[in-house]
């Protein structure tokens, strides 16, 4: 009895499906879906907050993904450029910690001191690539405003998980 009912249902639905769809229709649709999944991240999506503001026309030299790059003079962490982001933008899946610490680095190209904001990118566990610790002008933790040993992600929307650090130019010393 039960088998009879189940057999009928299966037969009907299979015949229906066969009548309504072409033989390769599913493959075609699934192919489009796969293609869409691949293309979607390439879309010019507006990622608000992922990019920090940057002064224009800074004379540049060196590789931003190298620890010796001039902007990293007081950094302690992983360089976001090696983690899917850049020196000024967080990798996908992380949020920038607005609360941060700020120092200066001398640009070897023009000899001026630039104000650098060392924002952390938060929300994923440590990136693990391009660890960089230079600590120039870093203060002990009892002067926290200029200490790079703090996890500044604790002041972000994403809370504690630290992923990598940015070096954003926000000003120029006179």
């Amino acid at each position, binding site marked *: 009895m039960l088998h009879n009912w189940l057999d009928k249902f299966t037969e009907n639905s299979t015949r229906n499906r066969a009548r309504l769809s072409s033989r390769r229709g599913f493959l075609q649709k699934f192919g489009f879906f796969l293609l869409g999944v691949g293309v979607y991240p390439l879309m010019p999506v507006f990622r608000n907050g992922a990019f920090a503001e940057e*002064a224009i*026309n800074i004379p540049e030299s060196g590789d931003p993904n190298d620890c010796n790059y001039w902007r990293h003079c007081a950094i302690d962490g992983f360089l976001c450029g090696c983690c899917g982001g850049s020196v000024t933008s967080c990798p996908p899946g992380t949020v920038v910690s607005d*609360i*941060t610490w700020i120092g200066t680095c001398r640009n070897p190209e023009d000899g*001026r001191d630039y*104000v650098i904001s060392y924002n952390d990118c938060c929300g994923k566990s440590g990136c693990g690539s391009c660890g960089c610790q230079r600590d120039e002008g870093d203060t002990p933790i009892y002067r926290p*405003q200029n200490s790079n040993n703090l996890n500044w992600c604790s*002041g972000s929307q994403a809370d504690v998980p630290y992923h990598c650090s940015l070096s954003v130019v926000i000003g*120029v010393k*006179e």
Partner: protein
Amino acid sequence: MHLRCIFAIVAFMLSGWVYATEPVQFDYMMNCQGCHLPNGEGFPARNVPKVKDHMGKFLSVDDGREFLIRVPGSAQSDLNDERLTAVINWMLATFSANELPPNFQPYTVAEVSRLRQNPLIDVKGAREILMSRIEKTEQRKQRTGDQP
């Protein structure tokens, strides 16, 4: 002629010229901005007080003027008295000009120097007292403002 002027200005803006940050804003960046943020918004959810559209309200209540200099961020900053005075006055003018009382006088160096000798210990408690005073003042203002 006008066009030429505009072209000259645009060319100047596009040239490799890097502006220097104002010294007082530089001091704000280096000593305050990390937590209070570029526009003074702060992060109240994580106990970083809001400065924007707020800081000047303290000047309308008793002990508020002293409070702004006695908080740890001011009193214990690396800035000397002159530069701290300049930054505080700059912050008031930049972030909270609309909240300043009509009889507002900028801080003087001597005043800041004296006040920061006496830093607050119970900052949170002092802040709560001042916030309730501010609230009362605002309610009073609203009531008198509503009357024709």
